[in-house]
């Protein structure tokens, strides 16, 4: 495990249920139906509207608590990568934007990796923080997703990825585009180890994120009403000069067009994930196929150790 301890030092940060410090008298206005809900009730319902079932933004920490058994999980420290490789500057320096996002979120970048149990199954979860520069994917995000894949292989765990991203991080130019390939390599390593790769699409998942690891799940779930697509709706409208069909690029629309397997509410998500992981890792099924389609899984594993 030496190579792992170098790359992904486990950082014990198990969380115990902790109530957010929000006064009882604050109201939340639903972003969809406009109904007013007590903030405490809204938070207690995983930021899902009581009236219309709209799935609002969920803070990363709360999402993890809701997923893992007993709200317990361990986050891993992610490999450091050079920030601002292009010295990018538009109206503002990327290095400043990045620092601001770090300060506001108290996170290193837009994707974190944690492991623990869901429904009693060993899982590694990589989850996006949309608040961090729109969840955009640069080198750090790609590295996080790859580290998660390696950890899943090492722990023989199912790999669950929960994207929420506007797509590539433009300020990293071509290197952000390269994450489409880098993250796919992670998916392949998990697949070759015979482990489940499950994607949970949340609002929004678009651009280069959708067009790479997010659409490569063995099983693909989505939260209700999430925007999921490749091109942005505005770009499409400008191109075709036509109104878009109702519900376009929403989870329900994708399900109807055969692009995802299931729409799962936040409340049912943990149980569903545990069930799917259990079904795909049933020990009794071992040896019933000639193995994964991998040509060379051994080569990958043995060489990975050298790194």
């Amino acid at each position: 495990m030496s190579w792992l301890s170098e790359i992904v030092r486990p950082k014990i940060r198990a969380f115990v249920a902790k109530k957010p410090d929000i006064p009882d008298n604050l109201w939340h206005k639903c972003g969809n139906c406009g109904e007013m809900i007590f903030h405490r009730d809204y938070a207690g319902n995983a930021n899902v509207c009581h009236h219309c079932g709209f799935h609002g933004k969920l803070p990363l920490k709360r999402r993890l608590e809701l997923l893992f058994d007993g709200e317990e999980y361990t986050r891993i420290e992610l490999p450091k990568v050079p920030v601002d490789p292009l010295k990018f500057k538009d109206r503002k320096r990327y290095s400043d934007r990045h620092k601001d996002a770090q300060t506001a979120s108290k996170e290193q970048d837009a994707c974190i990796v944690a492991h623990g149990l869901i429904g009693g199954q060993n899982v590694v979860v990589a989850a996006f923080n949309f608040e961090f520069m729109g969840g955009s994917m640069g080198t750090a995000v790609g590295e996080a997703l790859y580290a998660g894949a390696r950890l899943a292989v090492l722990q023989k765990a199912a790999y669950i990825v929960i994207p929420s991203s506007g797509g590539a991080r433009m300020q990293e130019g071509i290197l952000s585009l390269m994450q489409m390939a880098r993250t796919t390599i992670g998916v392949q390593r998990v697949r070759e180890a015979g482990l489940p790769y499950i994607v949970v699409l949340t609002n929004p998942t678009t651009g280069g994120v959708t067009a790479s690891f997010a659409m490569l799940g063995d099983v693909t779930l989505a939260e209700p009403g999430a925007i999921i697509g490749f091109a942005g709706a505005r770009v499409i409208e400008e191109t075709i000069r036509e109104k878009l069909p109702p519900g376009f690029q929403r989870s329900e629309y994708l399900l109807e067009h055969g692009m995802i397997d299931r729409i799962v509410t936040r409340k049912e998500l943990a149980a569903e994930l545990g069930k799917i992981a259990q079904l795909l890792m049933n020990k009794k099924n071992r040896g019933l196929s000639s193995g994964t389609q991998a040509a060379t899984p051994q080569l990958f594993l043995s060489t990975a150790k050298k790194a």
Partner: protein
Amino acid sequence: MPHRTCRCVVGVLSLSRMNNYLDFEQPILELEGKIAELKRMDDPQLDLRDELKRLEEKAEKLLKQTYGKLTPWQKVQVARHPARPRFGKVLSTLFPDLVTLAGDRCFGEDAAIIGGLATFEGYTVMVIGQERGADLQSRLKHNFGMAKPEGYRKAQRMMKLAEQYGLPVLTFIDTPGAYPGVGAEERGQAEAIARCIDVSLGLTVPVLATVIGEGGSGGAIALAAADRVLMFEHAVYSVISPEGCASILWRSADHAAEAAEALKITAQDLLRLGVIDAIVPEPLGGAHRHPDAALHSLRLALNEQLGLTLKHNPAERRYQRGEKFLAMGRKAA
């Protein structure tokens, strides 16, 4: 009705580019015009040889000056030049025995991505590339090189066939990007691109990708998850078009030149960043001035790069391809 809509949106854009000159080439074109005029005169009474020689030297010097220090935004214009050799020209010159393959066996045939079986250096190879079209009619036919899911699924099919028969895969990239349309989204544009990258990275046969013109975003990397990625000297390869980036980050497409500079999209920058593996030299004044010389240069480069990929055994080749992409961006360039 994608074709009809293309005509009104993208078509206008392309028509404005159809005047075969670039702003910064204006002084060169004036000189070249004068030279052509002198040559036409051909008056035995006048000895114009000295004047002709002087002008030709001047034109060459000007070309060297201009093309030696093209800005990223100028390179974008060169990469999109209407007279630049397109994939069709690559096919007819380098792969004259091509047997085209068509269709994704799923939904349809997409003429934005074409290719098939051909011979290269004695090997049977699978050639796959994006065709933008050379005139208005063919641009419409090929949808300006903007592929739909069926194009990327056809590419996957061809890659798998290449793996089955041990054929090196040679891809050629020239696209503004994947097509943004309702039908494309409904049929899974994102999944088609993702799976294309997945299939390409899983191949054990050699994969060589060359950006011959414009490498636009996800639509480009779908065909460029390769052992060796080459770029023509004045080609560009970017996560987003400079105009698109400028309109988001600068709030106006007028800042496209600045965006082009900031995004690092030239072959020279990408080689420095370790994103591409080699630059294919273009003749003086760009591939659009001397297409045949450019294609000769391409042939030599492909031959050399194919040789490099053949040194590995299949499993190693695939592993090294993955490692190459994983190493990108890990260390400061």
